[in-house]
């Protein structure tokens, strides 16, 4: 029990550290690198939230699939819109 609470606190600190990293990144890098940093950090943060806060760590495989399924579907929308936009 105590251990679980400690783990959640660690995750919380990690999230705040990632937030600091992404804010710092916004002042130092620009262009494509900036996008990589800010969205890489955001993805890491969301992964932590999903895995630890939302307890996907202990859920069954099916629930995990459902949790990320919509994200995969969103990727379809974003990818095909990008294909049109960059080749127009």
């Amino acid at each position, binding site marked *: 029990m105590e251990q679980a609470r400690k783990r959640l606190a660690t995750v919380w600190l990690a999230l705040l550290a990632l937030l600091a990293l992404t804010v710092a990144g916004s002042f130092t*890098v*620009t262009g494509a690198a900036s*996008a990589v940093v*800010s969205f890489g950090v955001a993805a890491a943060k969301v992964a932590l939230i999903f895995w630890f806060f939302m307890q996907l760590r202990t859920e069954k495989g099916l629930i995990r699939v459902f*949790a990320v399924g*919509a994200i995969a579907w*969103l990727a379809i929308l974003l990818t095909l819109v990008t294909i049109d936009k960059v080749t127009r």
Partner: protein
Amino acid sequence: MVDQPYSTVLQQREAATMGMFVFLGTEIMLFGGMFAVALGLRLTHPREFVDSSMQLHVWIGAINTAVLLTSSAAVALAVHAVRARQFRATSVLFVIAAVLGVVFLGIKAFEYATEYREGLLLPPVGVQRLFMDLYLVSTGLHALHVTVGAGLLAAVAAFAPQRATLVENTGLFWHLVDAIWVFLYPVLYLAR
């Protein structure tokens, strides 16, 4: 106690969790439309998008992100508590999370007011106007979710902190509202 179509408590709990995750998927797709608009806007007008983004208050956004992350951590602890049947702790943690949600809304309101004074909201012409419209609609929609979420947290804390499934599902909703902000923040504030 098992409700009508179910035969076991476990089955009912699993159905509730699965239903919640499906619902969260619809929320992701709802905000996904906004992310697609942001992507389209940035691909068409990369320079103005970045310029407009730099006008926003990075630090206010950062503080708000920290507030939401903290609130999410409180909810995670509350779910932990309800599983240990510490209902009082669950209640307290949910109230903390709800209060942080209200703090988030307060900061957001202050930020809108500041932007209004600076003439950023509804600037007259051009791509910056499109960007600020996108900003308004997406943060507004998110703020609506925070309002609903904070209300749910408070209601569950007050009336039903012992109903584990309800506590967990409310928590899941709150985490997703947090996760969406985690993406909105770099999309809107940190484009460089």
